[in-house]
């Protein structure tokens, strides 16, 4: 493989890792606060649709982004009501939200656009366009570093940069702020937070809403930056890969970025090459598709370090004696 191909592959890795990363960080906030979320997929899908729909209708991608975030927040709020206020089963709520999004997006899309569950293709201002870093053009001639800068680092949509900046931001919020301390505490022992005079419900809602916000950006990215419009089921399991990455990263922000880049790379490889020849054996493309899931199972099995979720994760908080 030549240098340029590698750059191209990494470039596509960055693009494909972005939605994973946003969703993964979203899950990180929620799960660190003790609310399991297998509804990342649904929130992303809903956001993808509404961002594309509004962007198509208004021709303004920023309005689309807002709409996407809004719809994702709505589902996040639903998850919050079910799992925080009514202390329901978080896993079941997540499953329901995934189905709800899968159905509603197509239903509404069909109603609004009559295009079989799609939105019209986005054109012009309806899409996020590549964002060139300074001097990308002039530096492209520099050997090795030039292409790395101008091809790999520059020229992505603004949301890509937001996603990668969200990593240090997440780290900082979680480990350097009061909010972060409380958020982590509420995922470990909500009773401690409660008796310390801080609202468990408030904190958990805040976490779930941040999760909604990030999923919203992820969905909008899919429909308005990575692609030009919504097609049904366009998240294609990315929410679950993000969940896998979250476990892989053991709920830590920087590791989450590593995991998402790894899974993005796997996707990039699977997208570009059908079957891969490796020293005489052919690795079928299906193996590449399944690899993130297999890796997650291996991690979960504890063969490569144990993944211990936040202790109060998945449990509704009930005051007990």
């Amino acid at each position, binding site marked *: 493989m030549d240098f340029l191909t590698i750059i191209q592959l990494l470039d596509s890795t960055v693009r494909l890792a972005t939605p994973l990363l946003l969703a993964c960080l979203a899950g990180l906030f929620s799960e660190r606060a003790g609310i399991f979320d297998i509804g990342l997929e649904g929130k992303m899908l809903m956001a993808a649709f509404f961002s594309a729909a509004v962007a198509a209708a208004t021709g303004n991608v920023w309005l689309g982004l807002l709409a996407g975030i809004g719809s994702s927040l709505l589902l996040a709020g639903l998850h919050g009501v079910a799992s925080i206020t009514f202390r329901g089963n978080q896993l079941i709520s997540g*499953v329901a939200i995934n189905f709800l999004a899968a159905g509603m997006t197509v239903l509404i899309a*069909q109603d609004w656009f009559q295009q079989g569950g799609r939105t019209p293709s986005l054109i012009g201002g309806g899409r996020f366009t590549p964002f060139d870093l300074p001097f990308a053009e002039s530096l492209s001639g520099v050997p090795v570093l030039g292409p790395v800068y101008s091809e790999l680092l520059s020229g992505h949509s603004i949301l890509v940069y937001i996603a990668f900046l969200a990593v240090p931001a997440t780290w900082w919020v979680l480990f350097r702020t009061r909010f972060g301390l409380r958020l982590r505490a509420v995922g470990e022992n909500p009773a401690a937070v409660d008796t310390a005079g801080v609202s468990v419900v408030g904190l958990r809602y805040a976490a779930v809403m941040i999760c909604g916000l990030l999923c919203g950006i992820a969905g909008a990215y899919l429909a308005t930056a990575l692609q030009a419009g919504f097609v049904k089921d366009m998240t294609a399991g990315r929410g679950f890969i993000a969940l896998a990455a979250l476990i892989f990263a053991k709920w830590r922000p920087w590791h989450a970025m590593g995991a998402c880049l790894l899974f993005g790379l796997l996707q990039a490889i699977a997208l570009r090459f059908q079957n891969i020849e490796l020293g005489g054996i052919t690795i079928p493309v299906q193996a590449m598709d399944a690899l993130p899931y297999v890796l997650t199972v291996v991690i979960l099995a504890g063969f490569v370090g144990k993944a211990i979720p936040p202790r109060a994760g998945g449990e509704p908080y009930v005051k007990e004696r």
Partner: protein
Amino acid sequence: MDKMPKWADVVLIPLISLFLAALLSALVILGIGEDPVAAVKLMVDGALGSTYGWGYTLYYATNFMFTGLAVAIAAHAGLFNIGGEGQAMLGGLGVALVCLLIPWPHWTLALVFAALGAGLFGAAWAAIPAYLQAKRGSHIVITTIMFNFIAAAVLNYVLVNLLRPEGSMDPATERFPEAVHLPSLHELLAPIGIEFSKSAPANVSLLVAVGACLFVWLLIWRTPLGYEIRSLGKSEPGARYAGISSVRTIMIAMLISGALAGMMAVNNVMGEAERLVLNATEGAGFIGIAVALMGRNHPFGVFLAAILFGFLYQGGAELALWTSIPRELIVVIQALVILFTGALDNMVRMPLERIFLAMRKGQN
């Protein structure tokens, strides 16, 4: 002292939840500019108005009985098996191999072994998540989700590269031999003088599914093994105290669960398509979750809920056929049912408990 009578918990709450889900669904239909009454009429007509409709309703219900039972039995052991979809896919592979590799003299024999094959493959697919949960504490919800995706990849590979007949463009196996054709309800009922639609796919697997409901009921409530499964599901330290091996019980419960999910393939692969296609499960594994929730994990409840969802499915197909309402409407309904019966049941339960408490106070 319980806060409210058992019947309220078992019957009233699911019914109210279902009602809420139906109400919201009606609002959704209104929202997309259609008439909910007409839609329901069309659904009822298409799904229950003819033996053709019933044939499809029961065909889908058969699938959902298997996957609903699979979710239910795992739930009794305290496990949330989201992997029914993958287990059913692998079950399909089991059925296909049994039907294609062995020349069966008669469908009865083929049915028995196909069911075994489906159960075996489904159980095998559940075995790894089960083992990881039992031995290493890996969260079975996540592992079974992962195994759904892995199953799709495996099946994809097998159908594209191994089982696709020479020269065919479809990623599907060849057609099963005529000898393994399962009699449809039409063929079963004709001898006793009942005219049943010839083209509906409901077949003898329905009886197998009903048998499975009965089997699960006996197993859970009438055998020591069922007792152990339920005990473990309620209290793990309790099980340890009672000498109930959690590893063994989790394994057994999940193997049965996986086998039941896998056995769905007898219906859809052997009974209907008569060959294995991609995505043969059509999401039935996930609907099993809603069915088990609705049915309160009781085999009889699962039976009823499966028929309800069979109706929704067939009704939804009719909607897609005759109106411009997309089939996804049933996905929405399914989501609402799961949401209200599964995640939001406290929303119904809390006020209900207060009402019952007030009623009791009033009596005293």
